[in-house]
């Protein structure tokens, strides 16, 4: 049997154990629950399985075959070959969590470097070694706010994705945290400051703001939010698109206490939304309340620089039910991809990338909103995603699909008030040609 070297040695090894039959090793399983076989097809040759997978692959349309302009937090970005090369090093990808630091120095140093770059990007003092994704990071941040402030109300904008709301509810239900929503300004798409002022009070453990928000719009009144939260001794949690931080103000500059985000865009493929990366960074004073792994620099017994997992008394394998989180396995390889990606890009490259994404966003929005019948919904300055009201969003979607293109995200299903609205997303991967084609196809619909 493939991958099982001792299959042919079964008899002789059993003999050494003074056993006759392999079933003797399973004599401790009660007869009533023993099974003879699994009702699954028999083993297959690798070549045969590869053929099968090729057939399945043909039933998918990748970004290369079908350009997509979907927004909603996931967008394709260019991934340099360097990243694929490094994460394909099997010393990295076939390693376990670095429990034995002396033989895991490579991964540990890479995580330390990741933590350093995330701290730089976000303007925070410390970062952990990743959480599952940007959405669960909100849940963890809410729980952390409660532990720090001993308060049980968490405030979010009305316009975060429904998925995030659902995850947040699940993460906070057990702790008895109450979630309150703040409306958005229907004109600008930004947070409604008056409503925010009414909602935040002394009971507020924390407020989560997304910047740019779910509609792609920048929250530019952030300077006013921090004092309001400070006055109420509430934490300020900011969710970011890390690529925007190439040029945009880091949340640390406007008073954030915790910064989270989906890091998939930094060197990880779309992967149907999987292999995500939860960014989680915060101020130093909250270090002991962080969920998940943290890597520290220290020395070995000869005084050489060395790295290891640290502050482990926060974690489940030591603290059990009193741990700061249940997280064990995180998103190590995605984090390594991000560390490699950021070092390939460099600070300057990230700034240029951010600029390109911003410009592309403006360009495409102008082109689409110039088409009769299509209009920009929110006036706020946006990054690389924006909301457009179409004459008939469903018809637009179908027409584009027939022409081999995926349009923006249909918002009406989850946000009934946003009738016929589409959330478009564009990045450095969308060239002039594909944008022009999109615009001409949109013109055909109206």
């Amino acid at each position, binding site marked *: 049997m493939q991958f099982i070297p001792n299959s042919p040695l079964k008899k002789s090894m059993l003999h050494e154990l003074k056993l006759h039959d392999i079933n003797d090793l399973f004599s401790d399983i009660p007869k009533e629950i023993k099974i003879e076989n699994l009702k699954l097809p028999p083993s297959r040759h690798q070549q045969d399985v590869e053929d099968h997978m090729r057939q399945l692959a043909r039933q998918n349309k990748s970004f290369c075959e079908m350009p997509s302009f979907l927004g909603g937090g996931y967008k394709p970005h260019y991934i340099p070959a360097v990243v694929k090369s490094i994460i394909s090093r099997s010393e990295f990808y076939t390693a376990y969590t670095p429990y034995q630091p002396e033989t895991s120095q490579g991964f540990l140093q890479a995580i330390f470097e990741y933590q350093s770059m995330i701290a730089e990007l976000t303007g925070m003092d410390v970062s952990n070694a990743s959480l599952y994704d940007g959405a669960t990071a909100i849940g963890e941040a809410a729980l952390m706010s409660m532990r720090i402030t001993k308060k049980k109300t968490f405030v979010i904008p009305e316009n975060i994705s429904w998925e995030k709301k659902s995850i947040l509810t699940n993460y906070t239900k*057990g702790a008895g945290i109450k979630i309150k929503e703040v409306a958005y300004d229907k004109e600008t798409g930004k947070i409604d400051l008056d409503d925010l002022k009414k909602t935040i009070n002394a009971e507020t453990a924390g407020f989560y703001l997304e910047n740019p928000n779910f509609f792609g719009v920048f929250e530019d009144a952030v300077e006013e939010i921090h004092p309001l939260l400070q006055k109420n001794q509430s934490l300020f949690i900011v969710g970011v698109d890390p690529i925007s931080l190439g040029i945009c103000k*880091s949340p640390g500059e406007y008073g954030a206490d915790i910064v989270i985000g989906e890091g998939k865009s930094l060197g990880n493929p779309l992967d149907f939304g999987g292999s995500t990366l939860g960014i989680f960074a915060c101020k130093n004073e909250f270090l002991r309340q962080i969920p998940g792994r943290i890597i520290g620099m220290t020395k070995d017994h000869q005084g050489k620089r060395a790295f290891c997992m640290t502050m482990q008394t926060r974690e489940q394998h030591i603290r059990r039910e009193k741990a700061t989180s249940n997280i064990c396995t995180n998103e190590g390889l995605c984090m390594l991809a991000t560390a490699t990606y950021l070092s390939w890009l460099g*600070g300057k490259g990230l700034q240029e990338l951010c600029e390109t994404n911003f410009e592309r966003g403006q360009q495409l929005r102008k082109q689409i909103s110039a088409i009769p019948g299509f209009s920009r919904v929110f006036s706020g300055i946006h990054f690389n995603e924006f909301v457009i009201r179409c004459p008939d969003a469903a018809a637009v979607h179908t027409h584009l699909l027939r022409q081999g293109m995926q349009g923006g995200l249909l918002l009406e299903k989850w946000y009934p008030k946003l009738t016929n609205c589409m959330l478009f997303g564009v990045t450095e991967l969308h060239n002039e040609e594909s944008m022009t084609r999109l615009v001409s196809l949109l013109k055909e619909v109206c």
Partner: protein
Amino acid sequence: MYHSAVWREPLLNELEETKKEKYATKSMLPDSLQRKTSLDIPNLDETQVIRHFLRLSQMNYGIESGIYPLGSCTMKYNPKICEDISRWEQFALLHPYQDETTTQGTLRIMYELEKMLCEITGMDHFTLQPAAGAQGEFTGLLITRAYYEHKKDFNRDEVILPDTSHGTNPASAAMAGYKVIEIPSTKEGTVDLEMLKKILSKKTACFMLTNPNTLGIFESEIIEIARLVHEAGALLYYDGANMNAIMGKARPGDMGFDIVHLNLHKTFSTPHGGGGPGSGPVGVKEKLGRFLPVPRVLKKQNNFCFDYEYPDSIGKIKATYGNSSVILKAYIYILLMGGNGLKETSEIAVLNANYMKKKLVDSTLYQLPYRQLRKHEFVISCEQLLSTKGIRAFDVAKRLLDYGLHPPTVYFPHIVKEALMIEPTESESKKTLDEYIDTLLKIAQEDPLLVKDAPHNTAVQRIDEIGAVKNPILTWKNIEKLNEIHI
């Protein structure tokens, strides 16, 4: 003798020869939105980047470097073909929100994998959404909550688990809002039925169990355990970390478990990635199907689709649909192995563990607490080594590194003193097992000073972990604080 690569590799920011000037953006982004602080991410050449990370990789140990018998972690070989296919652009460059007619291949994989996992575990429904085992546990406990809320039984706020359970079990239960009650194991290393009877009550929501447990012992009283738990009106939860022991031999569903989580990155051979991405699918019995996270994957005629119309569902637990590349690799692995191969996997995993156990215990240098017959893993104690030579489990682990071998899990489960928890998996040859055994025996007879000072042949020597806690240096901004750590 083994010797690890030793690169005194500088940090990325130390590789940058000249700091570039602050980038002057030509962007139309209003000044009020622009960052004013510098962005200290080094600007390097591609050669510098590739050499840096390649050198780091050479100071890291993976399953392809050698045996990696971490107990309860199931570090088996990860077939290359799975990795290769998962990177095909038809799978890797799919947007989670693109039209379902354009993702039929992946939807079919998800649908079929759920069905395969149902057959392997004996459950009725599966979700692939949880990102890892711990998140699977958390999902299972949220389903437990939803089940009792639906039944309007609001008094069940306790989760019971044995003292041998994984740390994530109590942590997940606490996160889901439950009080955790830990029960001590019997002298046999198994669940104490009398104790369980006493503690089960109308307040019990769930009993969480790993079977075989973390000592590698199969809970032979499982049918009675299930009866007692159900009689109390509670649910029985299966932590699937040890599923590699029983595939094709017995199924949690038949044992009476109501909820199961699996670790695709353990049993189903997807690489651990140095700590993820993992995948922790959750399976449930029919009565709990309505509470599973949305979306569910359905087959309608010959098409596959997502279905969100489950009003009793707990909703979402992770963004999108789970770690898709991991899901894909597990699917390929199961196709390769087939039902017969999975059964062979468990048989040989158990054979290998019992073979190692016998050789080590026969030597009398290490002791085996509790019952003889083990499943895919076993726990031996270094207590005698400690009393006679002052050598701890920790020292044995570090000395193994000098021989180019990855140590077992140490000091777990907590009920065994000086524990070495060994899980060889089915991937290792008899020759490798023999070498590992011989090395463990050799270490037990070596000069204690040599062992207590190990490792000697790794990239760094024994690490000052206490210094790391006392004086946290967590980013490159703070490395001058390293001078404050005195060895």
